[in-house]
């Protein structure tokens, strides 16, 4: 592996976040804090416990997952879209670096940023609600796998997008609705049976459920099923990226 090239791409992407620190770090942390204030402290105080966990603490994993998914997708998609848009992608394509090294550089940086934000959000949440982490190693594993998987998805979107509108299309119209309907703010046991069945078709349910299990040991679906689903998404994303590079889709004519 060309480590120097990968390191250069990785650090350049991380430096871009520092140049736009308000947009990259402050903004998502602020919006997540608002969720905790509104749903956790204000509304949550009037809602009884869910599966033996206070409502404020119950939504912590879901909110962190919400931020992780949206940030992973937006960071990675913008990271590869911007050089395509500005034309500077020529430099990456003409460098002695393999496609997978390019992916490690861009996706690694996007996932790192999401993880950093996830940790900041966890610390921020502690200011509003008390929570515990029963399975810390599994929590880190879920966090890591989700950040990498959705950063890969963002990378794919950044290559697919031909303009800024398309760049926003998937995060706004797909990721956010799926996350809100994926059990972030409720347990799917609270839904009527029909909607429980429908909800199980939502992939985010498995991510939120597995992540919540690592906190409180409670879940809507088995944590092993959640882990298997994340690995399935990861495999699908890797296969799609491999196809993009094999065909040169939107990168090489």
């Amino acid at each position, binding site marked *: 592996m060309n480590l120097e*090239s990968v390191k250069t791409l990785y*650090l350049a992407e991380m430096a871009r976040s520092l140049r736009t620190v308000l947009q990259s770090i402050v903004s998502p942390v602020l919006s997540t804090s608002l969720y905790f204030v509104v749903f956790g402290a204000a509304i949550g105080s009037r809602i009884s416990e869910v599966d033996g966990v206070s409502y404020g603490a119950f939504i912590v994993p879901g909110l962190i997952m919400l931020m992780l998914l949206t940030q992973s997708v937006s960071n990675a998609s913008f990271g590869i879209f*911007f050089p395509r848009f*500005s034309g500077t992608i*020529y430099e*990456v394509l*003409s*460098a*002695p*670096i393999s496609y997978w090294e390019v992916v490690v550089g861009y996706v690694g940086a996007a996932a790192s940023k999401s993880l950093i934000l996830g940790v900041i959000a966890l610390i921020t949440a502690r200011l509003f609600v008390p929570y515990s982490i029963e399975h810390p190693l599994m929590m880190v594993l879920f966090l890591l796998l989700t950040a990498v998987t959705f950063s890969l998805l963002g990378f794919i979107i950044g290559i697919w997008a031909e303009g800024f509108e398309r760049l926003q299309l998937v995060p706004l119209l797909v990721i956010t609705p799926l996350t809100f309907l994926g059990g972030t703010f409720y347990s799917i046991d609270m839904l009527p049976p029909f909607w429980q069945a429908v909800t199980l078709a939502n992939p985010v349910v498995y991510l939120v459920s597995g992540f919540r299990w690592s906190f409180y040991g409670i879940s809507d679906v088995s944590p092993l099923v959640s882990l298997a689903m994340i690995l399935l998404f990861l495999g699908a994303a890797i296969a799609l990226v491999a196809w993009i590079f094999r065909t040169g889709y939107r990168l090489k004519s």
Partner: protein
Amino acid sequence: MIRVEGLGKTFAGGFEALCDIDLEIRRGEIFALLGPNGAGKTTLISVICGLVNPSRGRVLVDGYDNVRQFREARARIGLVPQELTNDAFIKVWDSVRFSRGLFGKPPDPAHIEKVLRSLSLWEKRNNRMITLSGGMKRRVLIAKALAHEPEILFLDEPTAGVDVALRRDMWEVVRQLRNSGVTIILTTHYIEEAEEMADRIGVIRSGELVLVEDKQALMQKLGRKELTIHLRDPLHAVPQRLSGHGLTLTEEGHALVYTYDAEAGEDDGTGIAELLADLEGPASPSRTCTLARAPWRRSSSAW
């Protein structure tokens, strides 16, 4: 240094941008690829640099296949694109340092300083790209291409859109690079630029490399014109008294072609006056004259 063998590129829509190109670039030379817009110049260098997939044929860079051994091949190449592409918010120093790292070279501030100074960019090293003029941005692109110490430098229309003074500066930079041992391939519309800079010139038109010549030989051809003398009655051979003019009998004896150096001027001997005088002699063949277009005519304008 670079060998292109049977290279062809047909785009998805069926457009054939390159047609069976064979070309060899020698180590240490300046090679100018000359041709009009859409001729295939940029496509050719894009294929060599790995930006465009070839449809057929192959490219060897210092003996390395640029697809199968892309690391070795690309490490030797620096590319200055035609468009002024850059990250507007990055500083000059960071941008050049990024390019060096991207090509797998460890940080070397002394080398980057040398490159920036040689391109008169040292004072601008802390400026963001967005604050630079077009000419300065083009210099930064050259600095980025040189950051990893390439043996081969591609310059895609390096003087497009730059003023005369800056063009002279660019030419000087290119000369200095050649003197340091870098092989340079540049594309241009301008015959003058090719004449000023290149050791050899390749002419590309509609995706075909129509000729590759040493500059001197090509310039001689560019300076030559043909005078065609159409004959009413055909000849079987060039008359004896006209044999000293180097005439060629064509069109099955109906035309005599006289080739002369247009640069020689009217007074010092294009030889036309002498030829006409000899033609006026006894039993001269009946004739009309046509000043034919030269195969490669020099022009002060672009293609």
